[in-house]
């Protein structure tokens, strides 16, 4: 193993540092070194987008970037999207519109969509589809992913995230489950 190098990054607002192999991928740094397992790996050719995170505010595929390249950068992952108990509008959108099934592509999809909405707060369906073309989903056929992003765009434009419509206890369940780290 080559000599370890020190990598310092700010992840979801927290300063984090570690000695790592120079060849360590950013996605493995996040998952294995920092324990942030919400960012997933679905391929080895940067096609699927399951590993999408934000690097200095721009969405990147973290399987294509070395951890050392992120040295000094701000990284945001799916774990940094909700504010306390308030879901991010995209998280709310994906939940409300049944925008996920197995959930494996979802964190990457949400991070890519967040970048899209940052650049284009009111995208058309075609713009959403083009904007998410680097994120593959095998479950949803993308129909509800598009609706989820539209839902979130609308919430963001209105500057609000309403309570879930069907069950008010859902939000509490979300927090409770997340606190326990319990999977579905």
């Amino acid at each position, binding site marked *: 193993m080559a000599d370890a190098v020190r990598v310092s990054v700010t992840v979801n607002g927290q300063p984090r540092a570690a000695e790592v192999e120079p060849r360590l991928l950013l996605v493995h740094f996040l998952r294995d070194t920092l324990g942030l397992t919400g960012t997933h790996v*679905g391929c080895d050719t940067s096609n699927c987008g399951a590993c999408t995170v934000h690097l200095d505010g721009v969405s990147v595929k973290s399987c294509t970037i070395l951890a050392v390249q992120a040295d000094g950068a701000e990284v945001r992952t799916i774990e940094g999207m909700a504010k306390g108990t308030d879901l991010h509008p995209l998280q709310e959108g994906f*939940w409300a519109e049944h925008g996920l099934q197995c959930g494996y592509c979802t964190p990457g999809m949400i991070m890519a969509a967040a970048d899209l909405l940052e650049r284009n707060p009111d995208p058309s369906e075609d713009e959403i589809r083009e904007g998410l073309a680097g994120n593959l989903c095998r479950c949803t*056929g993308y129909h509800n992913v598009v609706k989820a992003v539209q839902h979130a765009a609308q919430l963001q434009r209105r500057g609000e995230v309403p309570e879930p419509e069907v069950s008010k206890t859902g939000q509490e369940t979300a927090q409770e489950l997340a606190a326990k780290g319990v999977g579905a």
Partner: protein
Amino acid sequence: MTQAHNGKADGRHVGQRMRRKEDPPLIQGRGNYVDDIALPGSLHAAFVRSPEAHARITSIDASAALARDGVDGVFTGNDVDLESGLPLAWVPPGIEVQAPEHWPLVKEVVKHVGDPVAVVIGTDKYAVVDAAEDVIVDYDPLPVVTDPEAALEGGDLVHPDIGTNKVHEWSLGGDVESALAASEVVIERRFVNHRIAGAPIEPRAVIADYRAGDLTVWSSTQIPNFLRLFLAIQLGMTEDRIRVIAPDVGGGFGSKLQIYGEEILLAWCSRKLGRPVKWVETRSENMMASHHGRDQVAYVKMGAARDGTFKALHVRIIADLGAYSLFLGPLIPSLGAFVMPGCYRWDAVRTDITGVFTNKTGTDAIRGAGRPEATHYIEIMVDQMAAELGIDRLELRRKNFIPKEEFPYDTPVGMTYDSGDYQGTLAKLLEHIDPEQERGRTAEGKLRGIGFSTWTEICGLAPSRATGPSTLGVQAGLWESALVRVQVTGSVTVYTGTSPHGQGLETSFAQIVADRLGVDPQQVRVMHGDTSQGPQGLGTYGSRSLAVGGEAIARATEKVVEKAHAIVAHKLEAAPEDIELREGKFSVKGSPDKGMTLAEVAGLAYIPEGNLPDAMEAGLEETAFYDPDNFTWPFGAHAAVVEVDPETGKVDVVRYVAVDDCGTPINPNLIDGQIHGGVVHAIGQALFEQVAYDEDGQLLTGSFVSYALPSAAEVPSFETARTVTPSPVNSLGVKGIGEGGTIAASAAVTNAVIDALRPAGVDFINMPLTPMRVWEALQEKGGAPA
């Protein structure tokens, strides 16, 4: 079979578009997939896989790998002592199915690219990959068999010890030759239904932890109970010492309905080394080592009277099963034979299947498993016949549909369709799409086509009497189980033997239970995917989880309700039959003010103090095992509108309408979601996806760079609608919808492309309808029409 559970549901949640209970952790990055689990002291595994399609291993030199820091062991095929090899679970009575030896690591001869030759175990997941590269394997290449039809004609053999490349022959149906002879018009087509991958976005992953005689295996699998059984058999253990956990599973699509060598081998390694061992498949490994699906050549003859009355359908399938007979691989084409009559009346239908070995990855169930192929053949043949006879293709369908009055309907292949209304789904489809209007929208310079597919399929797997060892030959009962436990506070935990991995069953099952117990679905927790919890079950595949697993849950819940009624009746001094569930309380009919909530009933059940009827046991939980009487047969009518660019051959699906009937809907969001995803899986096969090998057996589509999964930019949004024809088979009236979209859609898209190309003289074409193939077909006919 009793139908005693009908009509008892309160009905407040069943049928509602409830948000999923599964989602909160998943949308916050707090899911729990196998790769998210890190056990202290865990080792990592990496595989050395064959780059050759067929070759004898002449030597393996692992010394350089073993010399590396952090490498704990390198094992090859002859190091691994197992009680038996990987299983084939299908043994049809009276039919020989060849099942060559298949070990987790090859012992002498590799049979396909990706066949595992050695495993490297070490402390660091990067280091074991380096070490695997250091394992030097010498191969002596052997002749490679890739063309399934040529393979049947003799010549080189995949398994010389077996003496033939034929895996098996299997037939279903009657005297189709007479019916064809009596037909005024007979047409014949050759189909290639090419090989595709399941390609769940989460590749496979396994952790095995053997300690002091007990084995725990986490696996990204659809079948944890089957896996436990085969771990026991192959490792020489008993099931009571083995726990299999399928935590969050990132999609399966049939590709995780398999007993994989890596699962068995990691358990063996953990036992050998006394430490946990973890392996996560790379996508490149997934493309070469997870099973593929489809890969059939079919010769189809269809006979009809000149007036359009269908007479006979004869389908001869050559199924490329790859190098080994996998878990259910040889059985898969037979699932197509069961639905070969489609939605129509025939004098005779027959399917003859020949399985073939080739030097490719094995094939097995991929979403739809045999039925997408069958529906593809039927629905394209119907359109071909319509063109031959000069009869409108929808009129031809209507003329031959089984009328709804004739259900339950006995088909000429010995199946009984439970219920159906094929005219109804087609009529509803045509409320949404007008073919003539669509044709009028043709863009300048483009060819526009509209295609239809009216489908039915077999799901609700399975009635054991129809599929068991003495009938179809599956070496298992395919019942399902449920345990419904009311805790003392009135919260409810449901244990299911199904193993959902994206279907949303935690939500739909909770809806079913909540209505029957008068509680909110948030109070109902559904547990699955852990063999140490709840009764045994058979897993999730074949659109069975609601129709079989859901019904088991309904029945267990009804037993709880029955006990609750007895407890309430005793307490309130009424007769049990006079107790009803009303506004969340078990109350005496006519006296709604006198009632008890589930929590109050549970209080009495767990703290009896003499409040229970004589001889009643304390507690409030019940188990049910449900083995259905029949399969269920969902159906529908789909329409695809495509636009073809004649200059490039590129096909765009510009509109897609799906009207489906899966019986009583439990959660319409989940149904729509299954349709969307299923349709895109089939659009993928029709237009983009193909697992391709060259003639040397080299895999040409070894990653997502070359295996073209559709992205959001390549598919449209969908229009979905439903009719509701309850199944009489189960008390819920449900049929299953996990595969219907996939089963319907490749034919709809292909028929649409043929419809678009027909003015140019192209009247038949096989998938995948890539730009090159479509362009070439047009060129053969002299290019696009002016």
